[in-house]
């Protein structure tokens, strides 16, 4: 039987989001145009920002989110761009470019005042909450203090009334911190732990030409961003697991800080939150243009051979595959089994007749 219905919930009062931006900038060229640069300060306020916000299930929306004017978002920061270009002699040119920007993202207002919980791990757990004063999509997690290494440690984890603070835990489980000190572990104990939004971004490019040789390299990096490694928390049957888990807590390895193997869904905690800082060499190219007089003999105007590497090197602290995990504004930076970025190497030939 074919069926048809209306499922996607639309906000009948949907409006434009309004962005007000203040920008102060200086551009300059110095030393006979060898140094050029730019300094920028900005403050951008987006009111009634359009966000795919979660909506109560009673509306029947199939993906559980709808586009609405949900929040006021403030972004402020500065950006510095510097470029140095020089020619040493007829044979040798080089350039160096550097960009650094700092950004602070925060929420000024949430339309109905109810924090937006998002960042689903597809196992019932959520990882982010967006509320006034926090960055958009901030990680909102239980805090851990190692694992219960011994039965004594577990038995000693009691509240003032002498009742266990984590009644369902056994040795080898992560110890959750009762951050508000009320003697039980519940949502009130979750705390904000940063977000996927980087605090600082850096870009770098270098290049030179020497006689027939040319070389360029560029890279970029993000700093101060966090990543939730959901893959480390739980995998479903048949997938590979992290090699480090070989050293997990067991009765024979009670000093491990890696939680025991368990079939329970791990609660979303800071144990799985990692620094997302990285710097990636995006592109390296080395080229050589064959001498003109050789080419004239075979009636070729120009011939260049080159070798290029894309995405060859990434420095990162993150233990997963890739620190670049963009998604929506509320649920970026969550790894649930992404594919690693592939590195590509090219050897090429440019021929002009």
């Amino acid at each position, binding site marked *: *039987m074919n069926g*048809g*219905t209306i499922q996607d919930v639309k906000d009948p009062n949907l409006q434009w989001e*309004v962005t007000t931006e203040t920008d102060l900038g200086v551009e300059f060229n110095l030393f006979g145009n060898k140094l050029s640069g730019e300094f920028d300060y900005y403050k951008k306020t987006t009111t009634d920002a359009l966000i795919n916000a979660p909506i109560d299930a009673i509306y*029947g929306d*199939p993906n559980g989110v*709808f586009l*609405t004017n949900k929040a006021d978002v403030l972004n402020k920061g500065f950006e510095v761009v510097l470029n140095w270009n020089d020619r040493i002699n007829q044979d040798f040119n080089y350039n160096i470019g550097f960009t650094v920007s700092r950004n602070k993202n925060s929420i000024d207002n949430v339309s109905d005042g109810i924090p937006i919980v998002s960042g689903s791990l597809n196992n019932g757990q959520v990882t982010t909450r967006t509320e006034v004063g926090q960055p958009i999509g901030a990680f909102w997690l239980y805090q851990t203090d190692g694992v219960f290494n011994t039965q004594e440690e577990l038995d000693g984890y009691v509240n003032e009334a002498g009742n266990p603070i984590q009644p369902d835990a056994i040795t080898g489980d992560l110890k959750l911190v009762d951050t508000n000190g009320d003697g039980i572990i519940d*949502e009130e104990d979750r705390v904000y732990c940063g977000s996927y939004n980087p605090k600082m971004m850096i870009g770098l490019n270098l290049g030179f030409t020497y006689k027939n040789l040319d070389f360029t390299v560029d890279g970029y990096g993000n700093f101060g961003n966090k990543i939730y490694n959901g893959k480390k928390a739980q995998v479903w049957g048949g997938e590979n697991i992290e090699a480090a888990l070989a050293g997990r807590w067991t009765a024979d390895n009670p000093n491990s800080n890696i939680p025991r193997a368990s079939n*329970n869904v791990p609660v979303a905690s800071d144990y799985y939150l990692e620094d997302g800082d990285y710097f990636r060499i995006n592109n390296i190219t080395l080229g050589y243009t064959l001498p003109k007089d050789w080419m004239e003999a075979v009636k070729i105007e120009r011939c260049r051979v080159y070798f290029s590497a894309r995405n060859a090197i990434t420095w990162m602290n993150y233990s997963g595959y890739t620190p670049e995990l963009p998604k929506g504004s509320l649920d970026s930076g969550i790894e649930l089994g992404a594919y690693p970025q592939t590195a590509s190497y090219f050897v090429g030939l440019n021929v002009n007749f």
Partner: protein
Amino acid sequence: MDNKKIMKKYIVKGLAVAVLAMGGACSDSFLDVEPHAEMLPADYFSKDENVPVEVVNSIYNKMLDWNQHSFSWMGVSSISSDDADKGSDPGDTGADKHQLDDWTFSADAISFKELWESNYGGIARANQALLIIPDMTIEEDLKKRLEGESRFLRAYYYWNLVRMFGGVPKIDKVPDPSNEEDVINGRTRATEEEIYDLIKGDLQFAYESLPQVYNSDADLGRATKGAAATFLAKVNLYQKNFGEVRRLTDEVIGYGIYGLVDDYATIWREVGENSKESIFEVQARGVTPAKGIAGYAVSQMVRNQLGWGINTPTQSLLDAYEPGDVRRDATIIFPGETMWDGVNIIANPPNPWYNEKAYFSKTLETFEGDWETNKNLRIFRYAEVLLMKAEAENELSNPTDALKALNEVRLRAKLGKVTETNQDALRLLIWKERRVELAFEHDRMFDLRRQGRAGDVMRAHGKDYVDGKHDLFPIPQRQIELSDGLLKQNPNY
């Protein structure tokens, strides 16, 4: 409701949004262009004769979704009970199915989330249909029937919710997320009584509007008057209105169009679909484009051979069958057994038994793939009408008629007659008959609760069932967060 109001609702403001994505700071009125295309005006749905029916079909189609009748539903309605274990390998938990088996789940278990979402998804489709149908320019008879079907199905989704969670938000029209009153209503739990009243109102309407049979084969599987009466009888059974149960079951029996099929085992085969015993089934389609109940059958089939092996029979269920009961072999797959279609089950799968009511033949039945199988799910069948009749007659101190109905079911199972006339003893016999007759039909856990003995039975079965807590499942944590705590959790979670 007038047409204007509906039109306003469905004007899609896509154009304004698309422009917005490109520009930033502009909000001047010259950009507020009226949308050129207005989608879905009210009479879109009556543009040809198929469309009104398709709006209602979409409510049926929700029943085929993975989150509605498959994994999560097995966990909550079956694995939780003494009839079934989680099954599969110990390491394969199905996220929370082991916790449902052990009664150690919490409010953020994914099964509750999925079932809450899917059942409200079905309710939303029904409310959508009920909003649109009155304005359609179609024959009054068809209109009435479509409203009846929509309300029957809405009752079904609410029935699932109320049995799992107790009183839930009562949504009986299309809610508007920008309307404060609708938002608050959507986050406020109605009482269990109010939800039961909604269900019974819907079923009464369906009963009055639906035909006993449909004349066209194309309409096979649509809700009928008999389905509405049977469903209403079951709701009344849960509310212990035994007089109503008697009246309604008598009526269904009196139609003379239903009866028990001779061979119990054939009920769950393709030949048994929409048989004279069938009162309401979820219709699956096994030919291209196949649309079955997503993963329902394969997830329960013999692990390491035919499927994943989840939701497996317990020793306790096996022990419940009397010697000679043909239903035991029809309900349970044994290692090494040869199935009716000649397939030999492996001798050493990881679980001792599997659910035969989910078995499908790849050779002797329509088969185009494991996921969208042809297998219908039986929701109400005539044997249950007889068992409800038996229970009602016993409660109304009429053991003669109770025994007559009960023994009709037993006769088909090749068992001897029961002659017990003591009311308490006969009640237990009827409940036991329900267990073996309806095993793996998603009834047992809810049946134990309405009988008021879920705690005793589950604790005897070795599960840590806590009275006053586990009599309801927890409201999904995520929905409580979305409501900023307005939606209240069930006690002790």
